[in-house]
């Protein structure tokens, strides 16, 4: 049997692939990488592209929109991004999130009003307790 290397492809939203392979090809930021078993330990960022896993019988294709590749002599881990990442894209998302916050909370005070919040929460809790009690009385 040919030498194999274990491959895990995972994303934040779930595991994508796990299995043995004879060779793994991945799009690194510095260029395409081919990883055979007993490759030296390596960590690299990935470009959007195709990760190919050669199992000896067939070639599996996985599209990644970036991520990080970690290689140990017998394990390859692809930490795949499911979203396309770029500095300016992330920046835009951040600005959007800020804008939304400002829009939704326009004209409100800076300081958190602890007393008011606590009073209201205490009231809610009291209500819940009262309901519980009523329920118990009804049951008995």
């Amino acid at each position, binding site marked *: 049997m040919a030498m194999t290397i274990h491959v895990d492809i995972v994303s934040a*939203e779930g595991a994508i692939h796990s299995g043995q392979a004879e060779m793994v090809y991945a799009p690194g930021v510095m260029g395409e990488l081919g990883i055979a078993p007993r490759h030296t330990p390596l960590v*690299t960022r990935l470009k959007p592209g195709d990760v190919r896993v050669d199992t000896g019988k067939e070639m599996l294709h996985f599209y990644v929109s970036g991520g990080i590749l970690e290689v140990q002599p017998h394990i390859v881990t692809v*930490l795949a991004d499911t979203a396309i990442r770029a500095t300016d894209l992330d920046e835009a998302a951040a600005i*959007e999130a*800020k804008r939304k916050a400002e829009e939704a909370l326009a004209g409100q005070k800076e300081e*958190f*009003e602890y007393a008011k*919040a606590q009073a209201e929460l205490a009231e809610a809790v009291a209500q819940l307790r009262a309901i519980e009690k009523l329920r118990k009385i009804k049951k008995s």
Partner: protein
Amino acid sequence: MAGAKEIRTKIASIKNTQKITSAMEMVAAAKMRKAQDRKNATRPYADKMRNVIGHLYHAHPEYTHTFMKERDISRVGYIVISSDRGLCGGLNSNLFRKLTREIKKQQEAGIQVDFCIIGSKALGFFKRFGGKVLAQATHLGDAPRIDQLIGTVKVMLDAYEQGEIDRIHVAYNGFVNTMTQNPTIEQLVPIIGEADKELKHHWDYLYEPDSKEVLDGLLTRYIESLVYQSVVENGACEQSARMVAMKAATDNAGNLIDELQLVYNKARQAAITQEISEIVAGAAAV
């Protein structure tokens, strides 16, 4: 038959409510399973990442990233995760209660607080009570995607890197089991507990392009994945809390209907008895 008609309409209306709550209960039960699966699916990614970070950390003990450095605290950030919808019992208010207590502690210690909001319920809460909100994301849906969170997390991490906040916590509901949800506040940044893994062998990776850049990308993604995990877990909590709340509501509606039915029957009988006695009295008079 005074009042009998009113009672009848009331029973009918409660029956309608009961139908709705029992439907909601079933929907929540179905969604809960999916949410739990989703929560379990996020685990491998974070675990792998923690391994790689652990390796990096041991290979380069001299290089500490800003996300790993403790500093003096004058301002803390909270990422508050809540549900988008109500009717889920005390889920959100329990979390907010724990949070307000924590905020009070910070305020007493002279520490300022900033917020980052995920979920409409938290938004409503901070709208009422104020607080400096840096970023928000709402309406993530039942299956949140990580790209919906990138922006909000980045705002907080940027603020941390620029020294505007010195610590980031995440507040969410931890899933214990279907009946129990545990409001949790965890420290997110600086990252804690990475160094305790004992790694004896000293080997290092090759880095492409270089170690700093790789570590930067890794840590950002790691933190994002932790926030994502919390969001997904909170989602599972929301569904299970809703399921329990709706089950209680359905049971209560059933009790109410039973009671009203009894009152209705009594009223009906009283009316019949009265009619008979009137007829008898009328006949006697003739």
